[in-house]
Structures are given as C-alpha cells and as structure tokens.
C-alpha cells in the first residue's frame, strides 16, 4: 500500500461586485463617514441597507442617516485573530445597533479583554484613516461614554447607561438622498479558500506508479473494463476495483483539438494539440498534449507514446511512435 498523498489546494479569486443603487450609496457613504440605512415599508431602518423589503418584497429606496454611535446587542470574544481579520490584537465580534437603526450591524470591537465587553454597552465607530468605499472603512468600534445627558438626575442610577442608550436609539434617522460625488459602483472582493487535498487510495496507487514512469489502470471485477486513471470504483457497475493493471505505454489518438488561445497561467505556447489518447489495454481515453510533431500533422488514429521530462510525475506530452496509424474501427468506441 503506497502512502496516501496529501497536498494543499488554494482556491482564490478577486471577485467583482456590481453594487446596485443601495449598496453603492451605503459604501460611498462610509467613505464620507456617513452611515446610511434604508427605511422599510413598516417604518423600520435597516443597517446595513438592503434593496428589497424583507416583509413585502417591495423595492425600498428611502435612505436614512444613522448615528456613528450605538449599542452592542450581542458579542463573542476572539482571542486569536487570524490573517486578514480587521484587528491584529484580540477583539470582540459584535452586533451593533447604531442609534437610529432597528437592526444590528456585524463588526469588531477593539477592547482590552472580554471583561471589558458586555451586551448593552455603548460603542462608536473608529473610522479607518484611508477610506475607499468598503465595509472596512469602519476600522472597528470602540467603547464610548455618552456625554452627561440632559437627564442629569438619572445619571447616578443603576442602569443609567442603558437608559441613555434607549433614548439615543430613539433618535430618529435623518432622511438622506444617498447622493455623493464620485459614487462607488463596484468593488473587488478577493476570496480565498485553503483546503488539504487527498487524491485517495486508488489515485495514490496510480500516482505512485507514474513516479516510476508506469501508467496503471484498474479493472472492474464485474464488467472487466479497465479505467485510467482509476477512481477505486467502476462508475458503471458501482463496485470497488482493486486489480491494478499496467496499460500502454503506447496508445492511439482517438480525437483532438488544436488550441489556439493561450489559457491564463499556462506555460504552453499555442498552437498545441490537446488529444484524447486510448492507451493500449485501457477502455477509455485520457487527455494529454501531443508534441514532437507539427500541430497540423496530428491525426485521429496516430500512434503515440508518453514523454517524461525532468522529475515531473505526469508525462509532459505524448509523441508519435512512427507505427502505422490505427484503423478507425479499432478505436471508434473510445472517442
């Protein structure tokens, strides 16, 4: 049993987003240190805003400015920030209901420790010094003490903070036309996923043989077909395959195309031939590049053999062997 192979698989892409009118106003507003919500049909103010009413499904466009201060509605302490999270030091994930809003916004709170965080505490936005029209224009939230209010007599009472928060929360959001100079209409949101990939036992057996420049398939105990590369199971019969069998190394080009456009990140010069190759003894064709012959001389039925270069595991390409072409009838089931 060869070792089970594993390798990192990173999937990342800078996705673009067309914002539409509401998100455009929201993100442009953040750039201008203005937090906008949207008023629903039943009069609530949603922050962050959405384009469509969650109750009636109607289009909603009445924007309203809310305060940069608010109240924590719930939180969770993050003792070990990961790469690309908003703060480098331990912080609290918080839901903050900004004053004038009816819903809470997810963000982070810069606090010295979990002892300094509680539901109901007052916080305010700490703006990022460089703002571009993104949710990260809010650098984070920070604890905030309200100015001693108009209701001085209540200040000494227990729970006065919450009282002030309630009052502040009732401060109505101010209508806003959402119009700014140079609005942000699109953003780029890079995404990245890190996986540990394992090809499994059957593929590991196949790869171990490839390292010795042998190409192997596995034969189905039921239909006797040889699958290359093997999956450890016959896709037709649904039974495990365990009988390894060496195929090739010679094979027949069953069909192909000539690739004339360069794929991003591919180190292959165009034009090149991308072919289906039925290795001798295999019951389906594998896919590979043809080399060692001008692209316009490749033909169906041409006999080929693998060429390994350097210490690469897979053949770099297949080259003509010079054998006579195979008759169409011998490979027509393997196109």
């Amino acid at each position, binding site marked *: 049993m060869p070792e089970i192979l594993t390798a990192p698989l990173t999937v990342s892409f800078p996705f673009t987003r067309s914002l539409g009118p509401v998100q455009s106003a929201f993100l442009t507003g953040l750039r201008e240190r203005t937090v906008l919500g949207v008023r629903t049909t039943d009069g609530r103010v949603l922050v962050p805003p959405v384009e469509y009413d969650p109750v009636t499904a109607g289009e909603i466009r009445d924007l309203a400015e809310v305060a940069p201060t608010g109240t924590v509605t719930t939180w969770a302490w993050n003792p070990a920030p990961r790469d690309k999270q908003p703060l480098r030091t331990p912080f609290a994930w918080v839901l903050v209901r900004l004053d004038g809003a009816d819903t809470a916004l997810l963000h982070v709170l810069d606090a010295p420790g979990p002892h300094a965080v509680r539901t109901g505490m007052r916080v305010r936005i700490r703006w990022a010094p460089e703002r571009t029209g993104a949710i990260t224009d809010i650098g984070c939230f920070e604890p905030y003490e309200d100015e001693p209010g108009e209701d001085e007599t209540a200040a000494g009472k227990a729970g006065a903070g919450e009282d002030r928060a309630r009052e502040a929360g009732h401060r109505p959001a101010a209508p806003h036309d959402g119009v700014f100079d140079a609005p942000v209409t699109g953003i780029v949101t890079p995404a990245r996923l890190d996986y540990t990939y394992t090809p499994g036992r059957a593929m590991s057996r196949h790869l171990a043989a490839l390292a010795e420049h042998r190409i192997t398939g596995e034969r189905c105990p039921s*239909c006797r077909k040889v699958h290359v590369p093997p999956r450890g199971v016959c896709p037709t019969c649904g039974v495990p395959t365990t009988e390894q069998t060496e195929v090739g190394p010679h094979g027949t080009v069953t069909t192909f195309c000539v690739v004339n456009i360069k794929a991003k990140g591919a180190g292959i010069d165009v034009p090149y031939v991308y*072919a289906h190759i039925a290795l001798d003894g295999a019951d389906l064709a594998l896919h590979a590049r043809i080399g060692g012959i001008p692209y316009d001389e490749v033909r169906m039925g041409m006999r080929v053999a693998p060429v390994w270069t350097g210490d690469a595991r897979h053949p770099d390409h297949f080259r003509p062997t010079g054998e006579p072409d195979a008759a169409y009838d011998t490979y027509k089931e393997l196109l």
Partner: protein
Amino acid sequence: MSGQRTGREPVAVVGIGQTKHAAARRDVSLAGLVREAALRALDDAQLSWADVDAVVLGKAPDFFEGVMMPELYLADALGAAGKPVLRVHTAGSVGGSTALVAADLVAARVQRTVLAVAFEKQSESNAMWGLSLPVPFQQPLLAGAGGFFAPHVRAYIRRSGAPGGVGALVAYKDRRNALRNPWAHLHEHGITLEQVRSSPMLWDPVRYSETCPSSDGACAVVLTDRAGAARAPHPPAWVHGGAMRSEPTLFAGKDFVSPRAGRDCAAEVYRQAGITDPRREIDVAELYVPFSWYEPMWLENLGFAAEGEGWKLTASGATEPGGELPVNPSGGVLSTNPIGASGLIRFAEAALQVRGTAGEHQVDGARTALGHAYGGGAQFFSMWVVGRRPPTT
C-alpha cells in the same frame, strides 16, 4: 397528447420574464439582476409576490460569482421570506432542472404557484478559472470549455462524415435569429456567413463565431395549477412532460457525441408527452447549443434525425426559422449565455412559442415545443415538452 402521468396536477406556465442579457450588467447587483427577470414574469402573469407559494433558484457553480449559497442572499429580492426556497445545481443544465423542480412541486400539489428563477453574472468572475481549479496531482487541462468540447465535435464530424461547413451554418442562423430577440446578448447586425467562416479558429474545429458568448442575465417563469391557469390573463403553456437524466463525466463506454443520458432523457420526456415521432410532432425546439456543431449532434441524440444524419437536417435549412423544425429561433446559447440561466431560457422560449408570445421570432402555429439543457461534461440533461393545449388526463 395522452395522459401518461395520471394523478399529477397539470402544470401551466403563466408568466415568463428575462433580463436584457449583456457581457456585463454593471448597473445591477446580483439581487437587482434576478429581480428584473422575476418582476417581468410576475407582470406577465399579473401576479404579486404574495401570490407565489415557493421559490426555486438555480445557477451554475458558486465559483462563477464567488457567492456561497446565493439563495440565502437573494431571498429578499425574490420575495421568499416566509416561504420555502430551494436551490438547484446541475451545472449548465441547471436552468432546465430548476423549472422541472418547480413544476414537480405544482404537479405533486405541494405548492400551487411557484416562481422558478435562474441566473449567472459571469462578469463578476471568470468561468474558465472556475472550471479549471488547480487540483493537486492532476495535470491541468488548461483548454477551457471550448477545448473540452472541441474534440467531441471532431469525433462527430468523423463519425457522421459531415462536411466541414455545417457548424458555420448553425452559427450564422442563430446569430441572425438573435436579431429578432430584443433580450439576446449578441446583436450582430449585418453578419455574413463568410464572416463566420473566416472568424479565428479558437479550438480547431471550433471557430470564434461558433462559440457562445459570456453573459450576465437571468430568467424567471411562474408555474401554477389548473385553477391558477384559469385565472391567468394570457394563454398559458402547458407542461406535457419533464425529465432529467445524468451519467458520470468519464467512464468506459461513455459516448460524448451522443450521451446515453441525453437519449434516455428524451425517450422519457416523449413518453410522458405521448410523442412517438418527435420530428413530426414537435413544431419548434430550443436546444442548448453552446458550440455550433452541437445542433446536429443533439438533433441525433434527441431523435429528430437518425444517427449520422443530423447534419443533413441542418444543412437542408430545416432548422431555419421558416423550416420544418425551427431550432433556437431565439438565437440560442450561441447568442446569449448566462450559464446558469441558459437552460431556463431554453425552457422559457419553448413556452413563449406555444403561447404565441415570442414576438418577432415567433414560429407560426407552434403548438408543441421542446426545451432542452445539458451541462457538466455532457453528463446532466433536462428537458420539457410544452404545448398550447392542456394535457388530457
């Protein structure tokens, strides 16, 4: 039409909507895009959001926009709060599968009125990247979808003995058909057959003009029961059959030129619709043809022509708008390809034809139409047959 599905509620298409398709719809968010199609479908049916009992959403792989579980983010835009919302995913065939899942909810009397929506906003990502993730230990193919399918086209040409120019005829026809469809992405006014024939060879034997574009777009249909159809302001299209079939991407005996899953799916949808001679009984077909040669290939796979004879049907002009079997009068996938929506657009266009509301690309007297979609490595198939008259049960 015989009633082969006794006990099922008859399903009617009473609303159809699609967006203006384009290379990039930067004016709308994903939510705004699906909303545009959904509102047009509701307007067509003269229904409101409150009349919809469930929403079924389809799109191709999440990597195509990078939004995981878009059905959650899009629930507000589709009026799905408080209702069942389902996500369907069968690669390029997903638009068709989405309509069939929605139709089954009505046929099974689980819901009375269902909104089916499918979309893709290809401009937010790169489909070629999304289809060729760098899986360790595997040799990258780096040929893209065209490079994947072009060898199968060559295999078809060899197997059928078709002359080389048939693919160009399909592309020339579909691109001209698109000029009569205001929603189509490509409107190549003044296109000539010579331009198609001399366009750059991308993946020999597939030329640039024989290749689908990359589009942003959405499509929506409203499906309802008999009572809903009776209240509809416009004549509905009735679903006479719907089927899906799948098979592995690669296996010993796989026939990429005429996949068995496609043949089986067609046989099942014809059985349900009581069709024994599709070429005679179907008036118009909207087939998923992303590369021109797939028209003759599917004509054979779907039983419109005998094996090896599909290209003769195309070359004879039978699939032209005035021909015996018009194929893709809308301009097809070759003129509009928001991948996840493309299958639903085929289904919707088939329904438009039998309702008599296809506008400038209406096929005169169309009574029975086939909508077809396929996806993945020619491994997922979905089809429906729709008719002007309700099924007899």
